[in-house]
Each structure stands twice: as structure tokens, then as C-alpha cells.
């Protein structure tokens, strides 16, 4: 089980690096979808000795939402707004990749200092979660397109989800459902709003949304 957990976590980080370093928006969305599926499988292997209905429910919800529903929404937003499939990065892709590796290192450094519950210190769950959160933030602040920012938002939430996994036993299912629903609502609104922004401003670059008007 240790093998599978580690492979899934490595896959999560590789998906992050892929989003940081690749140009076409469609490929980035697919990478984040893959990340969501990997994270959906993670609770089943992380707590292999005590698989419960709760865990299975969480897994199915995560895979369905992050692996299929949200990517579907983002692809629909691209199609509806007839967007050109390219991103407007504030920093170059090479710089973003190097920063990403730096953030992975930072994640491991911070995790080594955190007071963690016993039994989780040896695993790479916590450092991967921290690195994913930071890489999601990096995507949000460095990509100009609203759609890329939505993608960064999903990555950020994936990191938080990973972090929550170490405490999954003590977490009521209702809270998780609530969080998943929040994400769904957030991306759903972004997906529909993007079309309106595009129609109004003729672009979905966040740089043009600098002043409010009635």
C-alpha cells in the first residue's frame, strides 16, 4: 500500500509541474483532472486497513467532481467563450518550473518543522500537500487568464484536501461534502461568468478587470 500511496502523491506533484510548465490550456485542465482522480484514490490506500463507507463515498465524490465534472465545466467555458487556448503568463514557463521545484523544497522544509500527529511524519503526504497549495497559489498569481486562475484554485483546493486526508478519520462527512460543494459552486460560477466577462470586455484577461463600474 505504501507503494501506491507514494506513486499517487508523486503523480500529484508531476501534475503540478506539468501545469506550471506547459502552454496549452486543454492539456493543463486534463492534468488537473488526473490529479483529482489520483487524489480521489488516495484515501482508499492511505487508510487501507480501515476502509469504510465514509471513505468510499469521499473517494467517489472526489473522483466524480474533480476528475470529470469540473474539467467538463472548464472545457465548456472554453468552448462557449470561444477562447484561444493559450495562457498569458506573467513569468515565463521555465521560471515557473524552477520556482515550482523551489516550492517543493520549501514544502518539505516546512513539513519537517511542523508538529504532526504521530505516524504521518515519515510519509510524504504533508510536504506534497503544502507544495501543492503553494504551486496552486503560484498559478493564480502568475497567470493572467481567469480560466488559468480557476485551474490554480482547483490545485490549491487539491492541496488542502491532501492535507485533510491525514485527519480523515476525525472529520465528519458533512464537512467534506460542504467543502466539495463549495468548490463546485465556485468553479461553476467561474465557468458561467467567464462567458459574460468575455462578451462584455472582449477578453478574459484579469489585467483588464482593474476598475469597477456600475
Amino acid at each position, binding site marked *: 500500500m*505504501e*507503494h501506491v500511496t*507514494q*506513486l499517487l*502523491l*508523486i503523480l500529484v*506533484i*508531476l501534475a503540478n*509541474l506539468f501545469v506550471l*510548465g506547459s502552454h496549452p490550456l486543454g492539456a493543463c485542465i486534463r492534468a488537473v483532472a488526473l490529479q483529482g482522480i489520483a487524489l480521489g484514490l488516495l484515501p482508499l490506500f492511505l487508510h487501507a486497513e480501515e476502509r469504510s463507507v465514509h471513505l468510499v463515498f469521499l473517494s467517489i465524490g472526489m473522483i466524480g467532481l474533480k476528475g470529470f465534472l469540473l474539467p467538463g465545466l472548464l472545457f465548456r467555458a472554453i468552448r462557449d467563450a470561444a477562447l484561444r487556448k493559450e495562457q498569458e503568463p506573467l513569468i515565463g*514557463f*521555465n521560471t515557473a*518550473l*524552477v520556482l*515550482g*521545484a523551489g516550492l*517543493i*523544497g520549501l514544502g*518539505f522544509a516546512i513539513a519537517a518543522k511542523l508538529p504532526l500527529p504521530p505516524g504521518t511524519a515519515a510519509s*510524504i503526504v504533508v510536504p506534497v500537500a503544502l507544495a501543492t497549495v503553494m504551486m496552486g497559489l503560484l498559478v493564480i498569481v502568475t497567470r493572467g487568464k481567469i480560466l488559468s486562475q480557476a485551474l490554480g484554485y482547483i490545485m490549491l483546493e487539491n492541496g488542502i484536501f491532501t492535507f485533510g486526508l491525514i485527519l480523515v478519520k476525525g472529520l465528519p462527512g458533512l464537512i467534506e461534502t460542504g467543502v466539495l460543494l463549495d468548490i463546485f459552486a465556485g468553479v461553476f460560477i467561474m465557468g458561467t461568468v467567464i462567458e459574460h466577462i468575455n462578451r462584455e470586455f472582449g477578453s478574459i484577461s484579469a489585467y483588464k478587470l482593474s476598475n469597477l463600474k456600475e
Partner: protein
Amino acid sequence: MLMRFVSVAVALLAAPLLPGLINKTKSAFAGRKGPPVLQLYFDLAKLLKKGAVYSPVTTWIFRAGPVVSLASYLIASLFVPFGGDSFLSFSGDVIAFAYLLGLARFFTVLAALDTGSSFEGMGASREVTFSILAEPTIFILFIVLARISGSLSLSHMVTPEQVLMNPSTVGLLLLIVFSLFVVCLAENSRIPVDDPATHLELTMIHEVMVLDHSGPDLAFILYGASLKLFLMVSLLAHLLFPIRAANSAQGWLLFGILVAIVTISIGIVESAMARLRMVRIPRLLIAACMIAIFAMIIGLR
């Protein structure tokens, strides 16, 4: 000792098979019959019979280039285990291995610059630019391997049997193999980085540096290139299945199969991908380097 000598000799003889196997795979994907697997042997025999032509503007460096680079590859191949033990092995020989590859590249580049041709200078510049990104990756991978195998000698580093004791290093090994595979494609100028099948094209790297060499010199360069490919493929083959076989016959058989698998997968990558645009290549190599750094972070923990 005899067994070690035999394994190096067989490896040196078998090296020109790899480009033939890659070409055969590519032809199979394209639905062609393709050149015979032994084509490079015929080419080498033909070239060795010819005389060499030297431009009057070149100096001894131009003549030394192919000889020095082939000699470096030959010495480097003594450190690589081909299915058994390596011919030579001492603590720290990975550094010697990496620098021998570097020396070969340095002399190829010098010989290209020595011709005074602007075209070859361009190729030399590209070769050096991309190696800036590829060589640190190799060193980072060596650091990780040294850490998980607890040894500084190449023949032990590429067969880290400790991996099997510790389940958490299996994913690490996959990262290393992936990163080394990308570096192998770049270093041997295979397709996502360079197209080995073309001449006189503005984006090529390795072929452009050897345009002025002829006859036996060109044969040395072609053989050296196939040997370099063989060295990197054998490192990959060992890392894919890091267990030493019980006896040398089994070891060689397994090694041969793994080398064929890696070679065919290079051929598949070449058939499935187009060459990247020149400006995208650094990003590919940086990504490989960052994956190696990720492996190092996990490995050094």
C-alpha cells in the same frame, strides 16, 4: 576477469545495433520495410575503407576531435556494468564517467569550431547550450542514486538492490528513470530534441557539427555516437530492473532484453512525437531537471 572482458567486448561489438533497431521500429510504425538492422555496420565498413579529406584551414584539433571523443567513450564504457560487473570500478568513478562524456563533447565542439564554418559554429553553440541543462540533471540523478544505493561506484549505483527492501523508493526510481530517459533523448540527439535523420536543416544540433568530417573520422564519430547511446541505454536498462541475476548467463540475457525494450521505446517516442520547436527544448530539459530535483528532495529526506 575473463567474464568482465567478454561482457565489455560484446557490448562494444553490439553498440551499432541500437540505431538500427530504432530505425526498424520507426519503419514498422510508418509501414515501411526500413533499412536492415545491421546497416550501421555496413556504413562503418564502407567509411573505414575511404580516405579522409581535410580542409587546409583546419589544424590538428580537427583531426584529434573524433579520435579523442571515441577514446573517451571507450574508456567510459569500462565503468558501465553490462549485465554483470563493470570492467573497472572504484569509489567515485561516476565523476570520471560524467567527465569522460564531457571531454568527448568538448572535443567534438572544438573540432566543429576549428573548421571556421559559421554553420558548424551554430551547431556547436546549440550543443553546449543544451548540455548546460542536461549535465546538471545527470549529476543530480547520480546524487540520488548514490544516496539510495550507498555507493559511489557506477556499477553499484545503477543496481540499487536496497530499493526492494524499502518500498518508499520504488516511486523514486520511476522518477529517476523518466528523467534519465529525457536526458538520454537529448544527449543522443534523438527526436523531441534533434532529428538524427536530417542533414542541412536549420534546427539540427549534432549532425551539423560533424559535416566536415569524412572517411575514417566520420566512422569514428558514428561509432562513438552509437556507443554513447548504448552506454545511456544500459544505465536505463539496469535501473528499470535493479536486481543482479544469479549467474552471468542469466544476467546477460535479461540485460539484452531490457536494452532492446528501452531502445524500442526510444523508437516509439520518435514515431509518436514531432521534433519540438527550438525554443521549447530548454523547457523540456528544465522539466527533466526539476523532476530530478524532486527525486533528490525525496531521496535526501
